[in-house]
């Protein structure tokens, strides 16, 4: 499964849900897949993608989607425990797991050596979890997550692409402004 193609597929199912993207390619690909006011692009703060989404899920009754990454989440695994403790029914965490830090020279991440993030989520009390490796499977679980109470934690195994999308516009202040205004 490729992340950009899967991102485009997910956007067809999110409706008006806020979507938070991890820094780097996940943010670039979300922008190219379809810019919308409720996309929250991140440009730094590695590790905080799902924490930001958790804060959103505790502040709106709408579905909130996090598009996180394995390397980033490994930096802030505590937030998985906080999701398990808070159990927001409207939160869907998708982890693009390419088993590497692709942006820094393709160094293998801990998930390449057996760390199973779905098991971490389960042991933290997150009730709905899955690991998927093709787009069809992801679509089916994600559509279920958009309908049924979570929190959801979906590990999507992806193959790292050789070509990247151009960098999305870096305008963090506009990201916040657009998102917050859409809730007024």
């Amino acid at each position, binding site marked *: 499964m490729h992340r950009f193609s899967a991102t485009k597929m997910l956007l067809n199912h999110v409706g008006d849900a*806020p979507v*938070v993207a991890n820094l780097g390619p996940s943010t670039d690909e979300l922008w190219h897949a379809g810019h919308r006011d409720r996309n*929250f692009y*991140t*440009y*730094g*703060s*590695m*590790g*905080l993608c799902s*924490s*930001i*989404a*958790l*804060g*959103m*899920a*505790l*502040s*709106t009754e709408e579905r*909130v989607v996090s598009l996180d990454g394995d390397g980033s989440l490994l930096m*802030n695994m*505590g*937030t998985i*425990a*906080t999701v398990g*403790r*808070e159990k927001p029914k409207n939160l869907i965490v998708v982890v693009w797991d390419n088993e590497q830090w692709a942006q820094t020279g393709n160094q293998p991440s801990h998930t390449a050596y057996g760390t199973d993030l779905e098991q971490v989520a389960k042991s933290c009390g997150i009730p709905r979890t899955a690991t998927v490796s093709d787009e069809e499977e992801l679509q089916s679980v994600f559509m279920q997550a958009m309908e049924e109470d979570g929190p959801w934690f979906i590990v999507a195994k992806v193959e790292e692409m050789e070509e990247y999308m151009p960098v999305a516009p870096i305008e*963090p*202040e506009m*990201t*916040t*402004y657009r*998102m*917050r205004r859409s*809730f*007024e």
Partner: protein
Amino acid sequence: MWADVIVEALKENEVSLIAYVPDISINKVTKLMQDDPYFHVVSATREEEAIGIAAGAYATGRNAAVFMQSSGFGNCINALTSLCMPSRIPVPMFINMRGEVGEFNIAQVGMGRSVRPILDVLGLPYYTLDTEDRLDLRVSGAIKLCHSSRQPLALCMTPLLHGGKLA
């Protein structure tokens, strides 16, 4: 009492989501909020996570604040510089200052003394809370400034305000 004053100032400024990492000296105020249905108090595992949670709340229209200890401020600097500052996300940070008068633990001194110089370098404002005198104006005014400038801001709470941690 100082803790009630802080709770009222938060309400006055419609700050209702609190992300925090526990600290014995700020326990009085975080406990008040946990018992008050106006607030949703989230226990974070680490201070930068608390900043991320607060940022997400603000982006979806709910004002948030963070409570932490000075040692934990060191854990959240990148979240301030690469998320809150460029994204213009106002997060009032209530920081219990260790390493102040009466400190018994040498390991708390370095970070305690570094908080305000680091905030200076970042260009972020801070106010010291060390007395109940005009505390309401100081706290509420600082939160208003935080929101209007759309940048993080710190309220540094010293043992002279809350009594500190006794050895």
